[in-house]
């Protein structure tokens, strides 16, 4: 995984609360057996009309959204299924961070493992972001903070190990494989076959 330290981008705002994983990537696209190419189905039922044509009124289809890598969503993002296809679709589409007031546990775990930053902010910062779509913001992992164009800075929580992995491009599997001796000892002692 590529190390990430800072992310600077205009935001795209999708002010819907409780966006669940079935909206991010509907189940009919889960029949794939690879990770790639899911971006074209991101928010499929919102992005495309019944005829398959992009809907002009959906924000991700609008010209100002192109090139943006920070999605600001309504309260409580990512609830529902454990499908990692959700972060795969978001990153494949070009997004690198999701900002909300609350982010569901499994989605957050999955996001972190795919270099997608789950950024949880206070309601006041969130409100500002919702009211200023397209604002140029900076997310800094060194200080775990999000800086608004006003200069105002909001800290966000990030599990220290996940942060370390993101900043150093370390993958967790490598870390776990390095604990082989402890795992084998545990198995002998506590978990015989």
């Amino acid at each position, binding site marked *: 995984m590529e190390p990430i330290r800072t992310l600077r981008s205009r935001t795209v705002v999708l002010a819907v609360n409780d966006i669940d994983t079935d909206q991010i990537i509907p189940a009919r696209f889960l029949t794939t057996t690879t990770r790639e190419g899911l971006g074209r189905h991101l928010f499929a039922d919102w992005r495309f009309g019944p005829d398959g044509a992009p809907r002009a009124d959906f924000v991700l289809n609008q010209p100002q959204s192109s090139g943006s890598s920070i999605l600001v969503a309504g309260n409580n993002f990512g*609830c529902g299924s454990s499908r990692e296809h959700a972060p795969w679709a978001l990153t494949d589409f070009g997004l690198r961070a999701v900002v909300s007031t609350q982010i569901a546990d*499994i989605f957050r775990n999955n996001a972190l493992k795919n270099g997608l930053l789950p950024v949880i902010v206070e309601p006041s910062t969130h409100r500002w972001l919702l009211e200023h779509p397209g604002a140029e913001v900076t997310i800094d992992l060194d200080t775990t903070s999000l800086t608004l164009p006003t200069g105002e800075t909001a800290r966000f929580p990030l599990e220290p190990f996940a942060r370390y992995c993101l900043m150093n491009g370390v993958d967790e599997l490598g870390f776990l494989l390095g604990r082989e001796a402890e795992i084998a000892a545990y198995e002998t002692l506590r978990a015989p076959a």
Partner: protein
Amino acid sequence: MSAPLTLFEKIWRSHEVLPESADTPAVLYVDLHLIHEVTSPQAFTVLRERGLPLRRPDRTFATMDHSTPTRTEQVFGGAPISVEAAAHQVRELERNCAAFGVELLGLGDARRGIVHIIGPELGLTQPGKTIVCGDSHTSTHGALGALAFGIGTTEVGHVFATQCLLQRKPRTLAVNVHGKLPAGVGAKDLVLAIIGRIGVSGGTGHVIEYRGETIRALEMDERMTVCNMSIEAGARAGMIAPDETTFRYLAGRPRAPQGGAWEAALEAWRQLPSDPGARFDREIDIDAATLEPMVTYGTNPGMVMAVGGTIPERTGDAVFAKSLAYMGFAPGERIQEHPVNVVFIGSCTNGRLSDLRTAASVLRGRKVASGVHMLVVPGSQQVKREAEAEGLDRIFIEAGAEWRESGCSMCLGMNGDLVPKGHYAVSTSNRNFEGRQGIGARTLLASPLTAAACAVRGRITDPRELL
């Protein structure tokens, strides 16, 4: 004496390969890893890319359920699976399990079923175990006193390679339920009421332990219904302390300990319940005696009310308005008597034998209302056989319902069992998200009793009218 511990805490501690520190999460050992065709292929690819073996095939168990057909001719008759991509996933799972030595219940296996139904049914799910699966409803297994939660596909790969996961310790939430459930009100109504109370993100970051005399009085099938929907309140795991009901359920199941090992297991399992005085990070109390049959009216499981209730008004809440518009409902509306197009009985929430019995009790000697499509999909092939042995299939078929082979089916419609656009489906599953059961499908979650009553009347019905 050591400090009193919760059920969760006891299982967590006994599975720490390495405890968490400020810098690193705990390395948690996984006793049982369940897999299925949808969330495993990319994890097998990681093993191949990195040249890694699957560390413990003996602790890994596979079934196919999400995208599998439910039509008998496609399951057993050699007819092609109608959704080609789904057929491909099924073949991939067969190939992967063969290559890595994982036991798989294939499409024609008599023990196959929805992963969260077969785990307990086969006795693989046991008190005190850590159980994971690439599926959020893994919380179901907590009904037997296991610590069970859903993981993503990257984590599936971690467990394949190391039998461990990196996890931060969640907080605990006690949901204390007291009082007797009134007639016509069941476990599904109870858990919907709990979600309505704490909200769809109310359990985020927590493991729920359901406690109290109401929970103790529930049978295992009902306990599984409750734990199943923990994730709908945002909690990754829901648990119920094991007791005599649990042990009675497990005794003699093919993968449960037998003979002397059973006695030893019982001894260990009896130590698991939370100690008196154990502290939870949060507690809430629910009075079961005041509950009514519940139904959802919106596009998340927290948008729920009594069947006879009125949709609340939330002036100025655009998201709420959008959700109601999708459903074709209005604030202040009563939805009882609203016409229904589809009724689905099944899923890992309500696809067990007692659920089918409950639905059949309403349909016996009655007919599905004209114009209503009713689909009954048992949660496993074993549930199907048991139901057929009791003649439940005849009751459903004579009433005009369809009786299928087991699988997830219309719960998420991956196999082509879909609700048509704009149609109202009363479903015993767990998610009423936009498009969950098909593009434009309008899902109303309810208990098997309520769903069956709606099928008979063709309208949203309080099941107590038909008792």
